[in-house]
């Protein structure tokens, strides 16, 4: 007995020493990084607990590894959201013909698949026709307006349209192209994981694939001379934002697109010479949607007053760490700034913060404050609305909390209600919500944004699922503007259509823009250089917007 007690006491005294020995042994035994060859370019884009080997570029669900459609496979053109132009990639040019019912695309000539086979127009037509036979591979429903895709010769592809639909260009040109000689033998392309991809992109060789780490090597046959400058890419499985941020802070990651709170202190402060970020506002705007079928909220003046009550500066500071700016009256963020109409900007004075005016407008609209300082409906009930947010989407929850406090100032009682994504989405889509924060449709022009906000195309009665236009607002004029837009490829005409749409938007306030959605991008210049920056904006920095990040992948260079 005594001996046991003694051993125990010794163990207590020894335990710190044992621990230290342990650590030393482990540190010695664990071989650190073998220093062979140039350092890998470490990218953190996906946050997963373990990787699954899937390089199928046609699967829409995002279950194939990044950068399958923006590094391994390539599209015909890449839309550069910083410059607003289509960069020719596998194609060199396009031409609308036959009253915009036919599109001819000329392909680049010196492109070779990574297995040495030449890239031809047959590959392009095969890709699109495979999508026709497998509807599940056509998430953007290209075959809703396409009639046929044919290879006219080795380097010319002809798209014929069922109806005039000029905006379809965007989807067609961004399609990743697959090799016919490989895929024609695949039985079920929908369930094909394509473990060893044959592609045209700058990186095609899978050097290593484990659940926690994988590496992608350079394409030996890449068509751009001397590119990419980077030898290999490496990806670690960081399951949480926190883990990914730690890695970034520790300098283990060279390029990432994470949300990091207090980034100047947390990230840049660690190594100000090498740690950088750039959050250009190329995305859409984040909106507060109000259900226009509900009494009180169906009033245009009320919606404008609500907008005036919201302190966007505070939201941007509290919820977004000042990474972005309050929304523009037209809801067009910096990326779409050239499209802004001056008239609309002037009329959109309700996208501002003015509590007094908000109160006045509500008083004028006939909703007087009750005894508790809360405004009353005509039936005498106090105003009360839920602001629905997806649980876990913390930035928006913070924003909603600010909004809730703001609205209280003008006599509107609200409650922030968080719900699981599925439940939230179905309540939004079915129009069974009061207010909610959500995104908008994006695209190279504001057309998709305004169509989604105001066209009757997607308007559904409450209780039925509406894909967009959850707030349920429709304008006949917008409908006809949309039709006109789809039919023209004339730049001036397009501009006039977009201007008119903006005016309709600011007059009716169908939804309330809050702030511009930034695109997250961080990079480390310790080992690599030539990232896009505000001074050299050759593309947006974020890896989260394929295929645009192809531009970054081929341009980054080792130091």
């Amino acid at each position, binding site marked *: 007995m005594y001996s046991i007690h003694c051993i125990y006491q010794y163990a207590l005294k020894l335990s710190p020493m044992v621990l230290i020995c342990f650590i030393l042994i482990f540190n010695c035994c664990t071989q650190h990084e073998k220093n062979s060859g140039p350092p890998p370019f470490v990218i953190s884009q996906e946050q997963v607990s373990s990787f699954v080997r899937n390089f199928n570029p046609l699967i829409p669900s995002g279950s194939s590894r990044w950068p399958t459609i923006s590094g391994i496979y390539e599209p015909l053109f890449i839309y550069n959201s910083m410059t607003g132009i289509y960069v020719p990639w596998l194609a060199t040019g396009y031409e609308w013909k036959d009253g915009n019912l036919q599109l001819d695309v000329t392909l680049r000539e010196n492109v070779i698949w990574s297995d040495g086979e030449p890239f031809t127009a047959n590959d392009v037509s095969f890709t699109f026709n495979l999508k026709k036979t497998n509807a599940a591979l056509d998430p953007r429903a290209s075959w809703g307006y396409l009639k046929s895709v044919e290879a006219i010769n080795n380097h010319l592809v002809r798209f014929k349209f069922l109806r005039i639909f000029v905006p379809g260009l965007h989807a067609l040109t961004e399609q990743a192209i697959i090799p016919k000689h490989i895929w024609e033998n695949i039985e079920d392309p929908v369930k094909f994981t394509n473990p060893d991809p044959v592609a045209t992109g700058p990186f095609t060789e899978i050097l290593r694939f484990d659940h926690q780490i994988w590496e992608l090597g350079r394409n030996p046959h890449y068509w751009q001379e001397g590119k990419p400058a980077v030898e290999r890419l490496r990806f670690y499985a960081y399951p949480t934002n926190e883990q990914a941020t730690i890695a970034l802070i520790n300098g283990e990651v060279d390029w990432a697109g994470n949300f*990091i*709170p207090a980034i100047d202190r947390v990230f840049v402060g660690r190594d100000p010479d090498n740690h950088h970020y750039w959050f250009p506002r190329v995305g859409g705007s984040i909106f507060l949607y109000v259900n226009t079928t509900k009494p009180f909220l169906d009033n245009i003046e009320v919606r404008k007053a609500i907008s005036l009550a919201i302190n966007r500066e505070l939201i941007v500071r509290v919820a977004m*760490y000042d990474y972005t700016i309050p929304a523009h009256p037209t809801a067009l963020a910096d990326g779409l700034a050239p499209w802004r109409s001056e008239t609309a900007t002037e009329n959109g004075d309700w996208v501002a913060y003015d509590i007094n005016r908000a109160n006045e407008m509500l008083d004028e609209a006939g909703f007087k404050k009750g005894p508790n300082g809360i405004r009353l409906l005509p039936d005498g009930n106090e105003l009360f609305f839920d602001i629905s947010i997806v*649980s876990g989407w*913390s930035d928006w*929850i913070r924003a909603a909390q600010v909004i809730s406090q703001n609205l209280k100032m003008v006599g509107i009682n609200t409650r922030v209600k*968080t*719900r699981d994504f599925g439940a939230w989405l179905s309540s939004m889509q079915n129009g069974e919500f009061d207010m909610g924060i959500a995104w908008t449709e994006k695209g190279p022009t504001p057309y998709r944004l305004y169509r989604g906000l105001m066209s009757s195309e997607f308007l559904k009665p409450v209780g039925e699922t509406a894909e967009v236009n959850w707030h349920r607002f429709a304008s006949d004029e917008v409908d006809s503007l949309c039709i006109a837009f789809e039919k023209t490829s004339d730049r001036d005409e397009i501009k006039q259509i977009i201007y008119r749409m903006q005016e309709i938007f600011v007059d009716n306030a169908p939804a309330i823009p809050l702030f511009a959605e930034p695109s997250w991008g961080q990079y480390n210049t310790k080992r690599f250089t030539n990232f896009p920056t505000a001074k050299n904006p050759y593309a947006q920095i974020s890896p989260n917007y394929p295929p645009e990040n192809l531009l970054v992948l081929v341009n980054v260079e080792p130091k």
Partner: protein
Amino acid sequence: MASRKSDSILFRWVKGIIHNKKALSGSLLVLSFIMIAAIGPYITVDPNAFLDTPLSPPSASHWFGTTGQGQDVLAQTISGARQTLLVGFATGFFVVLIGALIGGISGFYGGKVDDVLSMIINVFLVMPGLPLMVILASWLPPGPLTLTGVLVITGWAWNSRVIRSQMMALRDRDFVSAAIVSGERNIRIILIEIMPRMLSLLASSFIGASIYAIGAQVGLEFLGLGDVSTITWGTNLYWASNDLALLTGSWWTFVPTGICIAFVSFGLTLINFGIDEVTNPRLISERNWRKYLPKGKGNDGITPVIKNHA
């Protein structure tokens, strides 16, 4: 006349707790947190208000510093106590209620009723709790009611099992047979004759279930499965983690909450230690006995000889 009995049993019990050092300090610890939860929100600044520079360290104006959104951590810690403790104790209550109901019925009636009920109890016992909790919590609308429900669903079985076996032991005792022979109804036997005998078990079950509920609740909320727009200890930790509190070195955003959770659970555990000792006087006698022994002399299974002690 008859009222003396209930006073007496309760009185004896309370006296036992007060005289027990562990139970007393545990009770004081827990009571002080309950007090904080009850009156705290009226004396602190608005925990929701965005007051100051985010993540500023503890200072005279903000004793516990501010969160990633510039809210007062002290105010958040204090007002977080309310819902956390409420959900914790409510779960504890319902777990014991259901446990006493199902375990009690199962143990008292035996036979086929017991076969079925104890099968259900055992099935719930072996089912892994967290996955079930996560699935349930993510399905139901977030909020205190959901949390309580989920925690009760995944947590009742253990107490049922304990109460069932205690009930089975008591049910075979002669005083129950005597009550049956004198014609008492079963419900009265269970409530008036048996339940008072299980008081300490019920109390410690309640405390155990509350500890479990506080821990599991905080865990679920930490994963973002609670209603993160309300202020609880779990959501405090969720926000701290969301704002990368540790990375930024802002330990003050999560240490106070973590310590509070630990103190409440520890206080409850101490009460349970105390209940254990009160119901098992042998432990205390043995401690007193040890005082008589010469220093360093343990119990080696040889009765000590101490002559002429005081």
